[in-house]
């Protein structure tokens, strides 16, 4: 890996920490997902996993060293980087986006319909967010099939698929935490289930935020990161002592 790529990764780690810190005070809003997704899409899995590992460890300087959280971040963000790094190189299968959206919408509809046993003070809010996520999934489903045969169908399909993947990954983050924390701390099954339901309150707005931010920012950010990645490749390929032609 060239020094320029390592420098780009370092800048990205700083950006992720700054973004997470700046929005840490705003409930339910995070931009780490969209920034890391677009970086991995443009720079590839190798750079993405380097950024994911460095981010997972360096953020502890601000938020403290909590082993369960470190394990969670290291596992999740490296898999995330691998997934979207590969996504930048390969085409998604046609069935992937609809399958993910059906799964997401189905789960939201099920929990919204049966009710989530969270605090009575939160039930209305959780139900509202579940239906909102159901609506977003349904809208993405319609969007996907409407662009499937459109002139610029490929970019629309890519957008719908990365959006669905980002939302799905955000849900998986909470589910992974629901598995790691009880195992790490040795909680009973009842405690683990209570922790799972209490996590809905953070998971739902984060999932909505991830879907919205990726849908809106994917193409602009990928353009910026791809330009940077392309420029680095050009500079690396230029003979020593000569600047690359623009």
């Amino acid at each position, binding site marked *: 890996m060239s020094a320029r790529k390592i420098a780009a990764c370092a800048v990205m780690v700083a950006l992720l920490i700054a973004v997470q810190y700046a929005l840490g005070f705003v409930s339910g809003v995070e931009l780490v997902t969209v920034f890391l997704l677009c970086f991995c899409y443009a720079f590839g899995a190798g750079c993405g996993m380097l950024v994911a590992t460095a981010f997972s460890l360096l953020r502890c300087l601000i938020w403290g060293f909590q082993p369960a959280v470190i394990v969670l971040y290291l596992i999740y963000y490296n898999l995330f980087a691998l997934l979207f790094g590969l996504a930048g190189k390969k085409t998604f299968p046609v069935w992937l986006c609809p399958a993910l959206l059906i799964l997401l919408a189905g789960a939201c509809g099920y929990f919204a319909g049966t009710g989530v046993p969270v*605090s009575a*003070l939160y039930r209305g809010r959780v139900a509202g967010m579940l239906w909102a996520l159901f609506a977003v999934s349904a809208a993405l489903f319609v969007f996907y099939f409407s662009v499937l045969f459109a002139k610029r169908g490929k970019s629309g399909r890519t957008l719908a698929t990365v959006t669905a993947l980002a939302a799905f990954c955000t849900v998986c983050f909470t589910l992974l935490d629901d598995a790691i924390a009880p195992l790490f701390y040795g909680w009973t099954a009842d405690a683990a289930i209570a922790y799972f339901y209490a996590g809905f309150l953070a998971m739902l707005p984060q999932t909505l935020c991830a879907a919205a931010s990726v849908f809106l920012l994917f193409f602009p950010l990928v353009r910026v990161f791809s330009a940077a990645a392309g420029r680095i490749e050009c500079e690396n390929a230029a003979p020593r002592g000569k600047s690359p032609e623009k």
Partner: protein
Amino acid sequence: MKKANRLSAAFFAVAALFAAVALAACAQKSAEGVSLKESGEHYVVIEATATGGSLADGLAALQEAGALEYTGTAGQYGLFLESVNGYVPAEGEAFMIYTTLGEYGGAVYSNASWGTYEYGGKTLACAAYGADGLPLVEDALYVIVAQPY
């Protein structure tokens, strides 16, 4: 006779004064739906006297009644307590909430696996929600204490 009347009057006046002070003290330690049972340097014990609202509402009511002081910010899980009665948690500490409210209305509000606190012969379990998410249920106890995490 006159002296006895004056002494009686003085006695009743002092008694009335004590009663008034005691009543005022009681009023200061309670508010609508909650009462402050005990407070120390870095902990407070609150009892719900009626069902309704959240613990955060109870804290606000007690602050308004002058029974306690607290500051906090709105976080991802609701009210994040920053100080209680002037006490700010030290490095590595945070305000933890324990309650006797376990399973109620189909939801679990605390769990002993996450920690316990002994008070008045009762074992309170660590709350599953912040002050915003804990409902006030009559006769339930809530302890807010600064502890290492």
